[in-house]
Each structure stands twice: as C-alpha cells, then as structure tokens.
C-alpha cells in the first residue's frame, strides 16, 4: 500500500514532465528503432545518409560524427575511405608553420559546410542552420518532429502574413521557418532503386539522424538484455540464499 502510493507519486511526477505547451499535433510515424529491442533499419539509414549528403549537408553540419562511423552502417572500409576522399580538410601547421589542405581520411570529423556560426548566418539570411548530430534528441517528439517539418511545407493560408524570407510550415512552432522546402518527390536518385517520394526521403533522413544522435543504441540494447538477464538470475539466487539462511530462525 505504502509502496504503491509512493510509486504512483513518482510516476505522476515523471509523466507530468512530458507535456509541453504545444498545440501542433504531429503525425505519428512508426519508427522500427524505437521499440524495446528495435534496431536501426540499415537500408533506410544508408538511404538517409545519401539524402543528408546530397541535400542537407549544404547547410547543416554533423560535427560529432567522423567518416569512420559510417562503417557501423554496413559500408566497407574502402567505401568509407571513398566517402571521406570526396572532401578536403585543413590540417597543420606543417614544419614550415603553414596550414595546408589535404584529402579527408576516415578518422576526420564530418566537414562542416561553414567556417563558423557567423558565416552560416551570413549565408542564410541571418538564420543559423542547426548542427544535426543531436537534432533528434534535442527536439520534443524527436523523429516525428523532424519528419513533420520536412513534410509540413505548404503555401501560407490566406490571412497569414509571412515575414520576408520565411517559409510556411504547418508543423514548425510559429509556422514561419527560415529553411526553404528542402525535399520533394525525386529530389535524390536512390542507388538501391527505392522510389524517392517526399515521404520516403523524409523518413529515411530522419532515421539517419536518429542513428547520428545515438549511434550506440544497438550495442546498448544488446548489452542491456544480457545485464538484465544476469541480474534477474542473480536476484533469484540471492532470494534462495536468503530464504535458506532465514529458515534457520524458525
């Protein structure tokens, strides 16, 4: 009784945090990696990487990822090397004290599209395209929010006054977003032959960003299963031991 009261107290306290002041209802999508033991859909994440590389990466950085991390998605070491080799990075200083350009290696971080935030703002009408490494974890409703924004562009309804340079988005808080509609049907030509509808592209790139924000999720769930099974067995043994020892008292 006392335990139930205390525990429901806790649950109430916890669940109440989940509500945020927000009237926008995002369309709920099914994300395979969100279930208890769910893994990332590797094919979708690879396609999502293609969308990121061909579209998003012109404005959005992914600074916490290195090219070598792509190996986790099923790319071979040679493929990873080939991806990295498409970029040049600044290294140095060399023995003469000069910075120099070289081809990127798998150990390099993803190259950011802009030198710094000021440069990013200058190129984007004053708005700062956020780094995408943690985007899924840094937004309320994570995946559903990103999918919603990517598919939520439409013409502004009559009577809504848009500020200069802003675009109407039905799922973005305030509905005025600086980013122009980035994806549309056939925006990328998928190398695996999947039809590139807007929804498909949005779903794929969202799954890529989910992986980017939590690359260790699969290892975490697999380790967790073993840890819980071990602890349950251990608890059983401790219970038996306790029972046996306490039996002496009677």
């Amino acid at each position, binding site marked *: 009784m006392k335990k139930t009261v*205390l525990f429901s107290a806790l649950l109430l306290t916890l669940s109440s945090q989940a509500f945020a002041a927000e009237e926008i209802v995002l369309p709920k999508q099914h994300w395979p990696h969100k279930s208890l033991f769910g893994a990332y859909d590797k094919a979708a994440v690879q396609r999502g990487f293609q969308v990121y590389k061909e579209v998003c990466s012109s404005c959005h950085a992914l600074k916490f990822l290195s090219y070598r991390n792509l190996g986790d998605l099923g790319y071979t070491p040679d493929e990873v090397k080939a991806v990295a080799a498409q970029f040049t990075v600044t290294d140095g200083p060399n023995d003469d004290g000069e910075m120099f350009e070289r081809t990127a290696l798998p150990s390099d971080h993803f190259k950011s599209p802009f030198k710094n935030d000021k440069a990013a703002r200058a190129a984007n009408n004053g708005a700062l395209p956020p780094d995408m490494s*943690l985007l899924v*974890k*840094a937004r309320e409703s994570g995946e559903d929010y990103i999918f919603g924004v990517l598919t939520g562009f439409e013409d502004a309804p009559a009577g809504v006054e848009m500020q200069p340079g802003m675009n109407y988005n039905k799922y973005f808080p305030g509905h005025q977003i600086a980013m122009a509609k980035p994806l549309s049907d056939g925006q990328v030509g998928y190398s695996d032959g999947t039809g590139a509808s807007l929804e498909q592209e949005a779903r794929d790139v969202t799954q890529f960003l989910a992986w980017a924000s939590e690359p260790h999720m699969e290892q975490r769930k697999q380790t*967790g299963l073993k840890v819980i099974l071990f602890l349950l067995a*251990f608890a059983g043994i401790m219970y038996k031991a306790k029972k046996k020892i306490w039996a002496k*008292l009677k």
Partner: protein
Amino acid sequence: MAGSAKTEKFDNKTIQWINDRLPVFSMMQDEYGKFPTPRNFNYFWNFGAIAMAMLGIMIVTGIFLAMHYVPTGSMAFESIERMSRDVNYGWLLRYAHMNGASFFFIAVYIHIFRGLFYGSYKKPRELIWIFGVVIMLLMMATAFMGYALPWSQMSGWGVTVITSLFSAVPLVGDGLVTWLWGGFSIDSPTLNRFYALHFLLPFVICAVVFVHVWALHVTGSNNPTGVEPKSEKDTIPFSPYYTTKDSFGTVVFLVLFMAMVFFAPLLLTEPDHFRQFDPMQTPSHIVPEWYFLPFYAILRAFTLDISIPFTHIVLLTAKLQGVLAMFGSILLLLFLPWIDTSPVRSARCRPIYKWCLMLLVVAMVALGYAGAKPPEGAAVWFGRAGTFYYFLHFLVIVPWLGKNEKTLPLPKSIHEEVED
C-alpha cells in the same frame, strides 16, 4: 570496541597479526557480524543499503567520467558528447551516472519515508536523523551542480534560475550572486567552481554517511513495531541474516535501475539538455530534475509581496518568501525529533498520524505536479495547497498529535509480534 580487540581470536595468523595492531577485523566482526539487529525488519529497511550502493556507483562512474570531461564553457558540452561516442562504454558511464542520480534520490526518499512512518528519528536516534538531513542537503547541492556540468541549455538556465534566488537576500543579494557566479554572468568560472565542488561533495557525503552509520551502531536500529529490543530473542546477528536480505533487495533495485539505463536512458531528460548553453536564448520552459520539483513548487507558491498597509514599503518580497519557504521546508526537518513529541514511534500504532503522513505524500505529489508545469491555472493551486499542507503537517498537525493522539497499545516485544 577497544576492549573486545584482545579477546578476539582468528585462525588466520596474518589476520590475527594485523588485528593485534589495528583491530579492524574485530570491528567488522562486532559491527557487521554479530551486531544485534531487530529480527522483524521489512523490505523498507533495505533502502539504507541500497542508497549506499548508489553512492558507490555514482562515485565510480563519476570518477571515470571526470577523466574525459573538460570543465570549460567552450568545451564541456562537446567533451561529454565526444566521450559518449568515442570512449569505450562512455555512453554507459554517462547514462548510468545521469539516471543513477534519479535512482539515488528514489532510494533516499523511500529511506526518509521509512523514517517518518516508523518514527526512526525519535529519541535516542535524533542525531542519526539530523546527519541524514545533512546528507540529503549535500546530495541536493551535488545533484544541482552536476546538472550544470553538461553545459546544455537546461544546465545553464537551471543554474541561472537557482543562483538568482540569492538575489532575494536583502541588501547584499546582488553582490552575493556575482560572487557565486565568479563574474557578472554565468560563464566558465561558474562552471569551473561547480565542477570542483561536484567532485568534492560526494566525499563529504561519504564522511557524513560514516557518522550516520556510526551513530546508528551506538543506538541500534529502530524496527517496524517501534518497540526497542528487550531480550536476545528480539534480535538476530546482522550477518548473515541482513547481509543476505540487503543483497537481495539491492539486486532487485539494480534490475530496475539497469532497465532504465539500457532501455529508457532519456525518459527523464528534457530535449533542451542536448542543446549547448546559449546565454542569449532562453528555453521556453525551464524545469529542474524530478527530485527537485516539490521544492521548486514551494519556491513558486508565493506570489504576493507583503508590505506595510497604505504604503509602498515592501517588507518581504514574494521572491524572498518563496526562497525562505523552500529552504525552510528542508531545514525544519532538522527539528523534527523535537516537533514530534509523541512517545510512540511506529505509525502502526498511531491511527491518525498514519493518515496525515499519507496526506503528506499526496501533498508532495501535488507539489511535484505543480513544479513540472508552467505557473498558471490548476498548477498554481496545486502548488499553494501542497505548500500549505506541507507546513501545516510539520508545524501544526504533528505537534498537536504528539499531545492529543490516542495511540493503539504497543506490542509487548518484537518476538511476540513476530510469532503471532
């Protein structure tokens, strides 16, 4: 303790040699082997051991995190993200430490509830209780400073809200805040001192836990009947009986803790914790961690300045009232052994107190709800009602019941209660 060193005999010569010179083995034997303990503990008595296990886990994970953490405004957020990705099992260290704080508080809050329910703070255990309240205060300070270290939006703005409370202190308030921050705004110096203190305080907690347990071993434990052990029939040696029972309880608790770490590590984490602190951009909704919510609600329950009638002279600003009430709500617990004058310890024999305590739990839930919500609508009333009952309970109901409650007859002894 000193006298028993001579009489103890150990088969192992090395142990005997050490024990003759430093009687640690006799001490362990007396305090954890033979230590006579009431035979009727229920599972509520596991939570002291569980809290101690959590303290150990927090210190161990914390030390390894500290090896990879960079306590500078420009690097802190990035260093934590890099360690979760690039250090072997860095994600595990981080998630265990983050959620460990929550589970440490769960264990300690249940432990405190146990003390309130069974009257464990009463004579002769007043000092044990006072050390316990000090531990809770130190834990709160440590948790708050730890929350600052990731240097996220929630970190930076949480620190802003809480440190700004000190500006409510009359006359010296603003100077005090500047002194706490180490500058005129929250920046690297603030982060650096929080990191130093966050590393130090857990060891201070260890020291206070030591005296907490030391004092416990002088008076012996309370038990569910609230009646002191009277004969040898009432007690059993701590080991193996309670070592096995505590181990079982701790492992069960670890199952829940690990389930959270591995399968829902971000359940209690706000999205703003994954954005780097930006002093120019306030998040829409700043909330503390769940274990602070009831106290945060008490802070916000006061909204009217008290002034001299018909003048504009404010005697006590609403902010200062809230700050005093919040700190007062915890500090008054220090005096609980004297506020509660009832000679009966256990709520099992106190029919009215028992329900008033349940109401206090309900009030804490209402306060928790109020603390999580923006201060508008029903949440405001939950906050006020909860705050009202919290102080009514400790300042009026408990003293009144101490004098007037008709208590039930106490069991004659522990073993009779157990054998019934």
